[in-house]
């Protein structure tokens, strides 16, 4: 099971690479076309925006799993282990609530987005706005699993350290500026 999950995230990472590389190629290609050949592809402008939406919301789930979303840890860092665990429980409940509303909102709005197409490519906007299912649902699942482990006392010390903002990597710090 753990292996499957690990593989799943590797696939997501590969997807993130493809999305960012694709965006860069499309926008760069348009610059070259515009200044070199006085033309441009409208598809590129539109698709690069949608790639960006997918990149943002798929990456948000990966980042959540890695505790990379920035927070203000000064207060929780002052608590002892018990206080920190209580904060983790409350924090995960808040995240589940918000993500579930995000998921639900995507569902309610699906008919409205399905009845609208992208002006150039004709892509149904359900494909773009539907990414809320993935992000809302993904974060609910991750937070729920964490909550269950917290309540059954199976949380690891590493997770508590990550929650209190200890041992940040340089890359994680870079995300904060």
């Amino acid at each position: 099971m753990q292996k499957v999950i690990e593989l799943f995230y590797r696939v997501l990472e590969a997807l993130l690479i493809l999305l960012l590389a694709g965006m860069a190629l499309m926008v760069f290609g348009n610059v070259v076309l515009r200044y070199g050949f006085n033309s441009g592809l409208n598809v590129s402008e539109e698709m690069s925006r949608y790639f960006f939406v997918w990149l943002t919301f798929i990456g948000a789930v990966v980042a959540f799993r890695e505790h990379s979303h920035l927070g203000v840890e000064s207060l929780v860092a002052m608590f002892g282990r018990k206080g920190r665990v209580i904060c983790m429980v409350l924090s995960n409940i808040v995240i589940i609530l918000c993500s579930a509303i995000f998921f639900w909102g995507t569902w309610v709005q699906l008919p409205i987005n399905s009845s609208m197409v992208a002006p150039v490519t004709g892509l149904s906007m359900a494909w773009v706005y539907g990414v809320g299912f993935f992000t809302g649902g993904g974060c609910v699942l991750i937070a729920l699993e964490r909550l269950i482990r917290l309540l059954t006392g199976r949380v690891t010390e590493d997770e508590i350290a990550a929650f209190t903002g200890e041992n940040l990597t340089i890359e994680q710090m870079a995300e904060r500026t």
Partner: protein
Amino acid sequence: MTLFVFVGSLLGAMAIGVPVAFSLMFCGVVLMWYMDMFNSQIIAQNMIAGADTFTLLAIPFFILAGELMNSGGLSKRIIEFAIACVGHIRGGLGIVAIVAALIMASISGSAAADTAALAAILIPMMAKAGYNIPRSGGLIAAGGIIAPVIPPSMAFIVFGVAANVSITQLFMAGIFPGILMGLSLVVTWLIVVRKDNVQALPKTSYRERLRATGRAAWALGMPVIILGGIKAGVVTPTEAAVIAAAYAMFVGMVIYRELKPSDLPRVILQAAKTTSVIMFLVCAALVSAWLITAANIPAEIAGYIEPLIDRPTLLMFVIMILVLVVGTALDLTPTILILTPVLMPIIKQAGIDPVYFGVLFIINNSIGLITPPVGVVLNVVSGVGRIPLGKVTAGVWPFLLAQTIVLFLLVLFPDLVIVPARWLH
């Protein structure tokens, strides 16, 4: 009252460790519930629409350019160039740090990435030459925070989109104040190292200097491309960003040969992850911004500060103090995203130039990156330079003070921002 519901729910969630992005969503939910207009679609729609903006595409591309600049050896060449030019003068390595920080600021938009590159190379050298280590670390931290002020700048893009202000104009207006910040560091550094007994580097020969310049020339071409392209109106900030990334990749792979094709997936993935973290935050902030606007919270605040509306200088002074206080505890991007929708209507009402405000706001937020207790750039120096955080914090204060003085000079003399901006635009 709505204002207190907004602030209370946001701070409450952040205090118990909820990441800022989710805290912003949560305060949006609470506001909806309080205003009796709960609708899950407000969350879903504003979240996604936030990322569906072409202007914001500049963010991943500038992040990518910055990553490629570091992996491709461009940062190293720039620092070597600065050493060859000014390394031999008294207090030289400090001046090197400031010059290199200014050049790197005109290529990259991230304070932490620039600081990490500077600290990795310069702190060991400065230690060897006998400089006071915490003070050197403090200087590098203060130099690193110029990155968001001089274009390109992620901070200006986020502010420009949140406040609906021209990013090109913000970029042009940031150049001179950024240089002023650098100059204030030079002055402060020369004062604090006056009595230190340090070894100056041997003076490099004319020929050697020429060679270092030649090696760095490709890297030094990057600011010319970015700023020149935007200034001439030939490219938009988004296009300039993608050109910068392509250029950094070309120089790193073909000219310096430090970047291998096999490095690319790692570099791109890192840029993608950083992008998601920032963008998810931007999107969540747009949810709360929508509700702040719909609830007319800015009007409520305008009521409290009514007496200041006719006194723009005093109003700016008060706002700058407020931002400094918020910046002690909150990181750059969250501060911009939380405060912009609240402050912008007041700024407009008081008749303050939004570009001028934007520049001061971003300088102030950048200073927040080196104010304790939460100053992430201090953490970077501490981590990369292996100096305890407390010591870096002690070392940074003269420079922090100097940059704060610059900030308030700009409050008193707005022409210091407005005149050069007009001249550059």
